[in-house]
């Protein structure tokens, strides 16, 4: 056990100094800090800033009113909307950059609903702008200007203000779509980061093993410790390394959000999902164990670093499948395919890390995937250590599948 500890400490100290590790670990706090700077630069409310980013509004808009319902423009809209006598005048103003968008409202607008939107760039972003809340308010206010009171007018322009309540009783007023998004996005990104951390630290294991093998030091090491001790020490050391990374990320996120960063809303969703957080940690550890051992075995099989990495690519691929379909996970976290992937040991850790923050995952999936992982880890460890031992001592040629199988049988 002492030797496992010695190996773990060695692996930790060697890898914690790697440039790649330092860059990757520093990236998250740096991005967070950058976000803060950007947020404060845009004046206090970050949420307003984000809302502007997602739903940008045109600054000045010209209106050519063939219908007559928009003449004159109501005082509340006069600062941004300007009437033009005809399309020619409007186009001229657009060319002169006096306005960014020109709306031409035809006589039959009430029947057809069609509005010609003219802009310099045109295209998709313009369509999004026209659909914005303030534009909607502009139309509603003018169309019903004298018929209804101001409160109903406002309701007509923005009929739904969602308050999300889920059956688990965690429902609390979300405080707008942004907070709802953050509630989902922050744990989701945490899941993504954990997946990345698993892949990165098990990647170090692969690299370390391949290095020891190609540099031939492995025989000296194996004359001092057993293959099992070596693998266990490496997995332990690099596991703690990965945890270090995650802790740095979390502490920096909390630290940043403890100050002005709370306006970014980072900490709140995390703390609100303590159960997700705890389960996330469990899946992180289980996932790391599975991948680390597989990467260790793959590293021992290749004759060169490149060959080892190609072999390991098969496993990375499996881990990445949930990432590739993550868009799908966001919209349908409990669909059958994802549930199946949650029960398969190679994809279970990453799949569950992505699913957990999204919705109430069925308990049977949580229990089932943890059980599958808990059962497969000893098997993977046992087989991995055997393959590891065989692979490590074969220089110059990769063991054939038959030899790998033989190594497993000669336990």
């Amino acid at each position, binding site marked *: 056990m002492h030797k496992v500890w010695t190996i773990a400490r*060695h692996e930790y100290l060697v890898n914690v100094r790697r440039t790649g590790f330092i860059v990757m670990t520093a990236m998250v706090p740096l991005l967070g800090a950058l976000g803060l700077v950007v947020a404060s630069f845009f004046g206090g409310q970050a949420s307003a800033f984000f809302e502007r980013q997602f739903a940008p509004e045109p600054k000045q808009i010209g209106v050519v009113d063939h219908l007559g319902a928009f003449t004159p423009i109501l005082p509340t809209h006069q600062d941004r909307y300007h009437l033009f006598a005809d399309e020619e005048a409007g186009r001229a103003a657009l060319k002169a950059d006096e306005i960014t968008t020109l709306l031409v409202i035809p006589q039959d607008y009430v029947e057809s609903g069609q509005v010609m939107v003219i802009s310099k760039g045109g295209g998709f972003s313009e369509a999004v702008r026209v659909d914005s809340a303030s534009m909607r308010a502009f139309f509603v206010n003018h169309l019903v200007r004298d018929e209804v009171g101001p409160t109903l007018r406002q309701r007509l322009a923005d009929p739904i203000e969602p308050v999300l309540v889920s059956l688990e009783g965690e429902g609390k007023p979300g405080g707008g779509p942004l907070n709802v998004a953050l509630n989902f996005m922050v744990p989701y990104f945490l899941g993504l980061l954990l997946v990345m951390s698993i892949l990165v630290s098990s990647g170090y294991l692969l690299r370390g093993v391949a290095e020891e093998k190609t540099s031939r030091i492995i025989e000296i090491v194996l004359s001092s410790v057993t293959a099992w001790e070596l693998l266990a020490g490496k997995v332990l050391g690099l596991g703690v390394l990965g945890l270090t990374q995650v802790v740095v990320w979390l502490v920096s996120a909390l630290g940043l959000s403890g100050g002005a960063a709370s306006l970014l809303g980072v900490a709140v969703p995390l703390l609100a999902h303590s159960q997700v957080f705890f389960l996330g940690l469990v899946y992180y550890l289980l996932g790391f164990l599975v991948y680390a051992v597989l990467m260790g075995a793959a590293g021992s099989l290749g004759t060169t670093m490149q060959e080892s990495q190609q072999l390991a690519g098969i496993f990375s691929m499996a881990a990445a499948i949930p990432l590739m379909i993550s868009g799908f996970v966001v919209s349908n976290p409990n669909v059958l395919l994802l549930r199946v992937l949650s029960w398969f040991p190679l994809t279970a850790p990453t799949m569950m890390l992505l699913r957990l923050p999204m919705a109430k995952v069925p308990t049977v999936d949580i229990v089932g995937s943890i059980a599958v992982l808990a059962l497969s880890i000893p098997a993977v460890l046992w087989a991995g250590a055997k393959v590891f031992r065989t692979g490590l001592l074969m220089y110059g040629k990769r063991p054939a599948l038959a030899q790998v199988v033989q190594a497993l049988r000669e336990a």
Partner: protein
Amino acid sequence: MTQNMLEVRNLVKRYNGFTAVDDLSFEVYEGEIFGLLGPNGAGKTTTIRTVMDIFKPDAGAVQVLGQPPGVAKGRIGYLPEERGLYRDIKVLDVLVYLAELKGTPRPVARQRALAWLDRLDLADWANRKVRDLSRGMQQKLQFVAGLVHDPELLILDEPFQGLDPVNVELLKGLIRELQAQGKTVVLSAHQMNLVEALCDRIMLIHRGRAVLYGPLDEIKRRYAPNAVRLRTSAAIQGLPGVARTEQRDGVFTLTLEGTTPQAVLRTLVERDILVEAFEVATAPLEEIFIAVVKEASDA
């Protein structure tokens, strides 16, 4: 009392139907330098790896320091045939780590590593990365890596391979010194002159079997070609029992038949032939090696 540091009994190791080591038995006594010889592919490295518990034997028994392989790892020093060190780690850290893996406490390992580095003129490099060292320095560092935990039994697989002449001398001196300190050394080698200079006992392996085993001087005597070498300026024709005479650089090699070196010397004295030098010829180990391997291959 002489204790067996290593005992190998009827060892068999096969790979995919190929028998690399076939019923091999030998022992290594405490305090001796034991040579393991043989052509490439004879099974030397396989035998050593089995002793080191890197391979499991298919049959037979191995006892290292009185215990099964793998138990006394910390008391054995090993220099494998395939060598390497961590290139991106500092010299001192590599030595301390490898000694720690052998169970040496960290402070002790550090102290010993520094002493060894000092001894081999590498002290200035202790805090440099291994990759910065020249090839010769890395070779020296490699021996230290096998010694720094102060083992009782040293197993060196082809230790002289690829060494520059300066390091060959250094290593020879080191091996003798270790023996003088009471350590036991097992070495496998191709370089017969080095084996002759160092080993007390040897075993020659061919195709996984021992074809020659015993004390070096006894083997050399057994394979002595029954010849004498003498240096003289006189004519030496007509000596009884001399089958053949060869002359090279003023040295005569007389191949004897039906007589002994002692009888030849007596005849020379009786005839009052001036002899500057006289010795019983022994075959160089190299010749014995080639002869035995050839004989075994023909058999």
